[in-house]
């Protein structure tokens, strides 16, 4: 049935007053329909309130919140960031206010907007993750993104993201508790991303998102010490985009799950690379820091791209580069 509707949709595009093709930018992720494929990358956008002063949250497919744990996390010592060429390192350490305050303050704020809410969930043990997932079960949240790939916390996080068995297990546990579709966010700090993508699929994940940051290090040669207090940090920004596109392509061809692509997206052209490589949706992260309008510009630019290439439905572009 779904396929029939989909085929019908392709044929029925109309032209608006300016003679432009009316484009269908909606994407469907595990039954959740997003008005466009553009979302924010977790940890770069808070819960949206700071950015809402500069841009219209209603224009986003979804807002992905900063990671939230069962209890408040203090995070790492400062300095937490360092700029690198075409990128940056961060080791914030998943500082968050805990799920109780998040539910009381951040969800009601986001509900005021016509955009989907995806809550990024972090933890130090399977139990921690499940506590948050259960706490969110009756909340007006559209999807959950499980962060098993943060390189900046000593316990948990990355431990699940680098071991396929552990990843499959935590995916199963979370899925058994979750009332919303589950996105597993994968780490690029692995030898073979397809092994991890298949493990998450085997565990029952509904959607995959990738990539999280690449572990890096910077030395301050004047002070002769590490540039960030945590010694290592996660590399993000345009510098990592080719790695991210490659991994999205590999994962898309290894599993049948929809993929949210991210890693250095700053423009619609960047986003289109991910979509053509196989991503059903994209997330804008580090670019928010230097361009608060980046997400909205990417969403508009994707429409322009479709117009230029005379494609009326974004579905017809996903993963077409083989």
């Amino acid at each position, binding site marked *: 049935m779904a396929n029939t509707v989909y085929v019908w949709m392709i044929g029925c595009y109309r032209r608006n007053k300016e003679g432009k093709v009316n484009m269908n930018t909606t994407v469907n992720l595990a039954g959740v329909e997003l008005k466009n494929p553009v979302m924010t990358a977790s940890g770069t956008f808070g819960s949206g309130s700071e950015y809402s*002063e500069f841009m219209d949250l209603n224009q986003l497919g979804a807002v992905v919140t900063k990671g939230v744990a069962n209890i408040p996390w203090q995070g790492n010592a400062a300095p937490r960031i360092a700029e690198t060429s075409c990128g940056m390192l961060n080791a914030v350490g998943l500082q968050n206010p805990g799920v109780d305050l998040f539910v009381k303050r951040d969800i009601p704020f986001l509900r005021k907007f016509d955009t989907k809410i995806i809550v990024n969930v972090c933890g130090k043990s399977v139990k921690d993750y499940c506590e948050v997932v259960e706490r969110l079960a009756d909340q007006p949240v559209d999807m959950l993104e499980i962060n098993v790939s943060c390189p900046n916390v000593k316990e948990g996080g990355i431990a699940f993201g680098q071991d396929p068995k552990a990843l499959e297990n935590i995916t199963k546990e979370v899925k058994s508790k979750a009332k919303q579709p589950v996105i597993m966010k994968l780490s690029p700090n692995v030898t073979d991303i397809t092994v991890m993508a298949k493990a998450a699929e085997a565990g029952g994940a509904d959607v995959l998102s990738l990539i999280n940051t690449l572990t890096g290090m910077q030395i301050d040669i004047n002070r002769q010490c590490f540039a960030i207090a945590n010694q290592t940090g996660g590399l993000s920004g345009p510098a990592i985009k080719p790695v991210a596109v490659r991994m999205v392509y590999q994962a898309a061809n290894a599993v049948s799950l929809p993929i949210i692509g991210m890693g250095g997206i700053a423009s619609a052209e960047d986003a289109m690379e991910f979509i053509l490589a196989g991503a059903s949706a994209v997330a804008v992260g580090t670019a928010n820091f230097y361009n608060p309008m980046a997400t909205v510009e990417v969403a508009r630019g994707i429409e322009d791209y479709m117009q230029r290439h005379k494609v009326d439905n974004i579905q017809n572009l996903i993963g077409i580069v083989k």
Partner: protein
Amino acid sequence: MHFKETAQVVRQDYISTDVYSIWLQTNKVAAEAKAGQFVSLYCKDGSRLLPRPISICQIDKEKNRICLVYRVAGGGTKEFSRMHAGDTVEIMGPLGNGFTIKDRSAMLIAGGIGIPPMVELAKQLHGQGCNVIAVAGYRNREVFLDKELEKYAHVVIATEDGSVGVKGNVMDAIEEQGLKAEEIYACGPMPMLRAIKEFALREGIEAQLSMEEKMACGIGACLACVCQSTDVDEHTNVHNKRVCKDGPVFFANEIEL
């Protein structure tokens, strides 16, 4: 309100080794700006992603201009130092909370590149009729902004090598001259702020400290630039405050140094 806009360089002057003073014609930023706030400047070189937070040294509300005084510390500030009158630069601001201006005698204490925000503050305190003392610390005889401060404050200079004013740091100058005031406003390196906090506590004087930390977004979203707070912070729900949004100015008793 924060604004992201294109500002135009009115003039730029080299005022000390690696220290530049730049006047920017803004659209809306100057009208909203307060003493102690900062602006983010964006590099034209696309490989330098993050904006550079720079404190506001002077505000000209009539002409809608702001003056920034900054030290060249890396590639980004080097790029700014090459700008000339007529050039444009993307800015966001005014950011942060700024100083809380108290109607009482003031002692402004600052070291090195912490001195710039004190000029606008001194101007405003002086305009309100407050008695203003400014204690400025430098490494050596290459002092800057002392003439600007002198218009609004009784200026005491300390230099590490003793080439100008009192030999030593700002605390040495305060002790040597027995300086006193009812409110302290400070900006400078961490060891200086620690000493000032201790001094203020000992003397029972309220102190406002302007902090510095590496920043990414500049608007409170990314949680890169935190400092430890005495109590659980209302927003973060942990013992962290955001320097860019909750600060950069904190009352000394709010933060752990």
